[in-house]
């Protein structure tokens, strides 16, 4: 069986679920004829026709809001925003309606929408095409935020997101859309939401990360292992709500926690994880919790982008600092 990229795994999941459930409809800017600017919807128009794969007019507020109406009628809209930085016109719809339809109607109307968007930096793109904005959505009660970090997890988590009875913001790390290939059997098997994935076991440090930063985190863990430091790398995967059990269990074992994310530090999701551990496992800690994140600045234009992105070196240096505490 051919190995596929993360981008292709997205397409495979969409095609599987469209085949299985005729209520699934896919729409957004350039998703039909062009197959999406990252080609994640490639071939769906040909397979499922123009009533289920729609090029919309250029308006994100419309995309976000229309999806809610469709969902109330039992359709399963998978709405694509072309880039994470262009989701904001839909923010009103997501925060004011998608998130609270179930609550407002005491379950009479619900909102099983998936809002997809390519997400994150590191591809030398123009302004607004490199944002790490997961915390904005994670702060909204009633919204799940999911970020896959491999082809297999992209496939399994997207299937789960589409089948989920509530709205999911599904952010796709564009830097690793085509970085690795994996064998991803098209079995239609979903992966669980609201659960972390332990990517590497270790006894010294718990490192929580997500999306493309699983790559640098695993690289750092590998190098640290050569120096005798065993890092447990956890892929958060569902950014909200957080699977605290897996994290707490790990921290109770290691006594040291670091969080690595690309988004700015201030009120980033790392802060939530740190607070959870402080609340529930403070006495297990032997060292202060550390966050390795983007700086509290705008994402720079691409010439200075690398200064912004947390480096493997910074992850390693922070890990070594943690090991100074016994």
């Amino acid at each position, binding site marked *: 069986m051919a190995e596929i990229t993360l981008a292709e795994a997205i397409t495979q999941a969409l095609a599987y679920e469209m085949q299985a459930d005729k209520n699934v409809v896919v729409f957004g800017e350039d998703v039909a004829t062009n197959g999406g600017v990252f080609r994640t919807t490639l071939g769906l128009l040909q397979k499922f026709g123009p009533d289920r794969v729609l090029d919309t*007019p250029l308006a994100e*507020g419309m995309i976000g809001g229309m999806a809610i109406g469709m969902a109330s009628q039992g359709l399963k809209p998978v709405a694509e925003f072309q880039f994470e930085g262009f989701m904001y016109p839909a923010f009103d719809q997501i925060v004011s309606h998608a998130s609270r339809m179930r609550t407002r109607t005491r379950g009479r109307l619900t909102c099983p929408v998936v809002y997809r968007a390519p997400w994150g930096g590191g591809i030398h793109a123009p302004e607004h095409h490199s944002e790490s904005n997961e915390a904005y959505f994670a702060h909204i009660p009633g919204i799940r935020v999911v970020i896959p970090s491999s082809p297999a997890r992209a496939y399994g988590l997207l299937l789960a997101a589409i089948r989920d009875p509530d709205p999911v913001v599904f952010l796709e790390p564009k830097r690793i859309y085509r970085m690795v290939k994996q064998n991803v059997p098209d079995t239609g098997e979903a992966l669980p939401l609201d659960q972390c994935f332990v990517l590497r076991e270790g006894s010294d440090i718990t490192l929580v990360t997500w999306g493309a930063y699983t790559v640098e985190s695993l690289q750092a863990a590998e190098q640290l292992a050569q120096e005798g430091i065993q890092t447990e790398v956890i892929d958060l995967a569902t950014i909200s709500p957080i699977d605290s059990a897996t994290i707490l269990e790990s921290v109770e074992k290691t006594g040291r926690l670091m969080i690595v994310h690309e988004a700015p530090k201030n009120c980033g999701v790392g802060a939530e994880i740190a607070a959870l551990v402080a609340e529930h496992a403070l006495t297990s800690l032997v060292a202060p919790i550390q966050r390795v994140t983007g700086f509290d600045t705008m994402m720079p234009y691409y010439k200075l982008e690398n200064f912004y992105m947390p480096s493997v070196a910074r992850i390693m240096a922070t890990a070594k600092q943690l090991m100074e505490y016994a």
Partner: protein
Amino acid sequence: MKTIAEFSIQFHQYLNEEGQIVQALPAFANDHAHLIRLYTSMQRTRLLDAKAVIMQRTGKMGTYPSSLGQEAVATGLGDAMKPEDVFCPYYRDQGAMLERGVTLTEILSYWGGDERGADFQVPREDFPVSVPIATQCLHACGVAYAFKYRKQPRVAVTSLGEGGTSEGAFYEAINLAGMWNLPVVFVINNNQWAISVPRNIQTHAQTIAQKAIAGGIEGVQVDGNDVIAVREIVGRAVEKARSGNGPTVVEAVTYRLSDHTTADDAKRYWNEEVVKTAFAKEPLIRLRRYLTEQGAWNDEKEKQLIDQLSQELDQAIKDYANKASQPAENIMDFTFKELPEALLHQREILLGENHG
């Protein structure tokens, strides 16, 4: 039943695709020197675009949006503005920005991923390129309100693609502009495409110009490949706004003869035949033909112009390439006027990582 409102949309053209005059020229166009200036500007834009696309292919430039085929829209609107007016451009406005006094080097720097390319040395009050589509329409309204509030005879001009007119921000802007009678002009570069989405599935409206009607303002359509028409009609709209007679939407009908940007591959969705036909209507050929027939242009002048513009561009590219890179701390130092205490610590980390 009775009809209570009726509207019509006028289409303006002076120079047809054969380079023939189809109606009496506006005064400025009787001045060959002015037309040659417009021609020069369009050529400058075309050469810049061609070079930037090549530079992107060889890794010397970021993603770049060529304006091939649409030079008359940008040049015409830029020329219609006065220096004291304010422009709120979108990303395909390099031709207009050059008219405004933004330099080739600044434009190259911006698309080369350097924020200093948005720190224009000449049009200090013009906005930087807006990438989030249609958002700039509302900025132009705000600028126009400030002019009106201070009773300054100045005009805000903004532009966007026809795809952008599907955004809420566009409709909000024309509604406000109409309601408050703002001195603002919206120029629509209707190049028939929004990436892969053609004009006919973007809106069911017969023209883009008629969207103005909903805001209670005037909407007109011009041949966007006729720089005389663009200059004249945008010019009229700008002067109308300046004299307190309100906003206008000008739809310039043209064709995108390149990929959407260097990140796009239009062959995936283009009809080559249609593009070929569109190429025959592009704006430079027809003006060159007209000027040649008028005895105001010839091959020798064309060659001289290309040489001169190429030298200018080569120099700009050198200046762009030789520009010292920004220090790492620049990613932080413009976040606030004064760096807050909380960021000072991060600045130390940044400097520690990058200077030693």
